[in-house]
């Protein structure tokens, strides 16, 4: 007979290993625990001692090859086995191994599980049919087949998802009659499916203590407190009901039951998901890494009153010539940025180590979240656009980006960018510069806030503007003046009138 030594998991949860070198050759005689092979796992180089004594019949894996845990490594012909037994020994050994392995795993699976009976029978039957080979390896089979990790991985497919609603709890200790908040549940909801949800009933320690004192099972209550917390009142009410009418269910309106809890954040997703990095994500990662590592960023912020801008915006929205166009705070911010760039040339520039270039035009990048990820399409020669033209350009660009139609050419050549974080409900942030640019402006959300006007606190539309700048050529002064200029225009859009 021939024993097969399968690759065990020598670390904790390793799945594969590379055979580095064999210490024995076919024909060698080995004793139990002789080192036969050196393998390399993700963690370490490990020498493997062989669990059998005998003659080496086959080195199943070549040096340099990587195999999965549970795959055969080496076959040993037992001492004293006579040659006739050797016919087809490799196949026999393999079969025997599987018999031993499956018997063990079946017993394990069956042990806690009434439904396992049939599987146990099936395995017993198969041991019988493989006859002598199974018997021959009964000793070694256990060693190769029953170890914690030495079984060849065999994953049985799921026939259905575990569902709390499928738990047959007919033999469980009876639940007390539903009461209080639970009353309605019994009527319109299969009760057993909610067991885990009930178990994780929320209650503070003092409430739990009270419940214990009053003999109330806290998991039977649907809490009336915040986020379903069981309150002192819930417990006391239940205690009184129990006293008044033991076992009787009072009819009270209930809150809907919590969804069944299956132990996952997202019930339908895998426990961990591996997402390949490619496309937009890959490009974004490369760009932000490069810029974050190589460009010293500086950020400034300013809170401004944009009420007048919002008035102009309301007026433009009524204007038929703007029909169908997006008239957002970003439109005014774009105009303001172009205006401020004219007064602060340092901002609209690019750094080239030995020199830097001031751009006398604005190719305005607008960062947009799309289904494919973050893209920054560019409005070329933005300084030439009228307000309406700019509104049309922004509208078009946003639609294209959202639908994934932005062409690579449309993303090239930006000189200055905007990231509009207001729609995310944010006020400020420190964005990373797009490649080749020296400034990116972040636009916050427009909010009603208390603001001091002429010594009185009044509600005004307020927004935070800020951004990041290439500190190599943009000093705090440059950035400050620029952002202040942008703010001035948004506070007083009349400045835009040339």
């Amino acid at each position, binding site marked *: 007979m021939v024993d097969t030594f*399968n690759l*065990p998991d*020598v670390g904790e949860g390793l799945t594969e290993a590379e055979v580095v070198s064999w210490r024995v050759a076919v024909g060698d005689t080995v004793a139990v625990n002789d080192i036969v092979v050196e393998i390399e796992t993700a963690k370490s180089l490990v020498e493997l001692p062989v*669990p059998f004594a005998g003659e080496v019949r086959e080195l199943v894996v070549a040096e340099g090859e990587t195999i999965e845990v549970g795959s055969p490594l080496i076959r040993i012909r037992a001492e004293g086995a006579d040659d006739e037994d050797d016919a087809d020994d490799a196949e026999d050994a393999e079969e025997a191994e*599987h018999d031993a392995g499956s018997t063990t795993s079946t*017993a394990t699976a069956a042990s806690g599980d009434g439904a396992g009976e049939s*599987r146990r029978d099936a395995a017993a039957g198969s041991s019988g049919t493989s006859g002598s080979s199974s018997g021959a390896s009964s000793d070694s089979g256990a060693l190769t087949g029953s170890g914690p990790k030495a079984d060849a991985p065999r994953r*049985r497919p799921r026939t259905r998802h575990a569902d709390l609603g499928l738990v047959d709890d007919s033999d469980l200790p009876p639940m007390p009659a539903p009461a209080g908040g639970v009353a309605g549940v019994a009527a319109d909801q299969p009760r057993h499916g909610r*067991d*885990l949800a009930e178990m994780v009933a929320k209650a503070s320690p003092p409430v739990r203590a009270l419940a214990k004192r009053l003999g109330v099972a806290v998991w039977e209550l649907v809490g009336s407190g915040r986020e379903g917390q069981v309150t002192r009142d819930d417990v006391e009410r239940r205690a009184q009901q129990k006293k008044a009418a033991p076992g009787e269910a009072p009819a009270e309106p209930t809150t809907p039951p919590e969804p069944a809890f299956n132990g996952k954040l997202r019930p339908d997703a895998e426990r961990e998901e591996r997402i390949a990095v490619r496309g937009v994500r890959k490009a974004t990662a490369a760009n932000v890494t490069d810029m974050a590592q190589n460009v010293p960023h500086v950020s400034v912020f300013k809170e401004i009153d944009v009420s007048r801008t919002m008035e102009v915006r309301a007026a433009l929205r009524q204007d038929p010539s703007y029909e169908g166009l997006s008239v957002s705070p970003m439109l005014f911010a774009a105009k303001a940025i172009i205006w401020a760039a004219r007064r602060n040339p340092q901002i609209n520039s690019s750094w080239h180590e030995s020199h830097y270039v001031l751009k006398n035009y604005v190719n305005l990048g607008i960062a947009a979240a799309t289904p494919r990820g973050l893209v920054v399409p560019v409005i070329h020669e933005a300084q030439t656009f009228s307000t309406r033209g700019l509104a049309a350009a922004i509208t078009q660009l946003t639609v294209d980006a959202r639908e994934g139609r932005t062409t690579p050419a449309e993303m090239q050549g930006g000189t200055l960018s905007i990231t509009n974080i207001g729609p995310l409900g944010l006020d400020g942030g420190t964005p990373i510069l797009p490649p080749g640019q020296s400034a990116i402006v972040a636009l916050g959300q427009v909010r009603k806030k208390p603001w001091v006007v002429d010594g009185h606190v009044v509600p005004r539309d307020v927004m935070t503007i800020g951004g990041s700048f290439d500190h190599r050529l943009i000093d705090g002064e440059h950035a400050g003046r620029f952002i202040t200029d942008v703010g001035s225009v948004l506070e007083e859009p009349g400045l835009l009138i040339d």
Partner: protein
Amino acid sequence: MQPIQLLAPDGTLTEDETYSPYVDALDESTLRDLYRSMVVERRVDAEATSLQRQGQLSLWVQALGQEGAQAGTVTALRATDMIFPTYREHVMALHRGITPQQLVAQFRATAHSGWRPQDHRFNTYGVVLASQTLHATGWAMGIQRDAAAGVEAARDELVLACFGDGASSQGDVHESMVFASSYELPVLFFVQNNQWAISVPATTQARGPLADRAVGYGFEGVRVDGNDVLASYAVAARMAEQVRGGGPKLIESVTYRMGAHTTADDPTKYRTADEVEEWGAKDPVARYSTWLRGRGLIDDAFIDAVEAEAQDLASDLRRTIHELTPVTLEENFDTVYAEPHRQIEVEKAWLRDYEAGFAEDSAAGGKGGA
């Protein structure tokens, strides 16, 4: 502070005014048992390591190199003294009558623990670092209260709290020592400084001797050569005397982990072969064996007999290991509480249902290998 050493690596014994009397008081059979404890465990340890490499254990934690520290210390205790081990105190475990099979059950993941702590006055192995010191201190509080309530047996009982140099950096150890000191609890803190907390050297964790830390808590700390089984015995015996009915003490046993932290670790990545070789020359078994032979306490026949006994235990472990089958789903749930518990019943029902939700094992037909 030089560690207390009686037996040099070359097997020569030196006299020490304080500690030699403890060794002198040992009878010959105890001296031979110290040797047997170390050798037998070393063999079982090696077998368990091989079994892990062969897929029979999920993990194994070698005690190789620390046999002297453990054998000396456990021998100095009474059989009734409660021990709170980490997961490497195999010599102590075998000394307390735990079988190799019981010892490896947890590492085969077939049981949460292979033995009942009360049967051996030896707690379950605790993998959570330094938790042992808290448990031991709490246990000692119980002893103190028993003694106050007139339980005679509790009057001079002590508790051994095992931990390592890595765990010494945990807050738990600090808390334990503060409480043990404040309440004058009968805890003997026993830190085996095996020089490596996985890959972090002890010198990083403690710039001075760990034993010195005891002073800050207001009790005595002693440093002993853990590879000297006689000094380990003598120091533990002296400390134990004082801990009984008195306050806590700390022993820092300076030793060396010759193997990996666990079988999932590769020490060649963080320590040099020279260092391992240097400590190998200080082996606890070799020096003790030399001394015993020199004194005529053991001979070849005795050594062979111990080897044979060790080999038998190891072979027996190999032969019977597959009899260690996993606890069943039922057992896992049924042993959580002493009485039926609704929450546990619900969870059991859920898991049973989950387990039943798989297709029949396709390999059950025995053709899986084809």
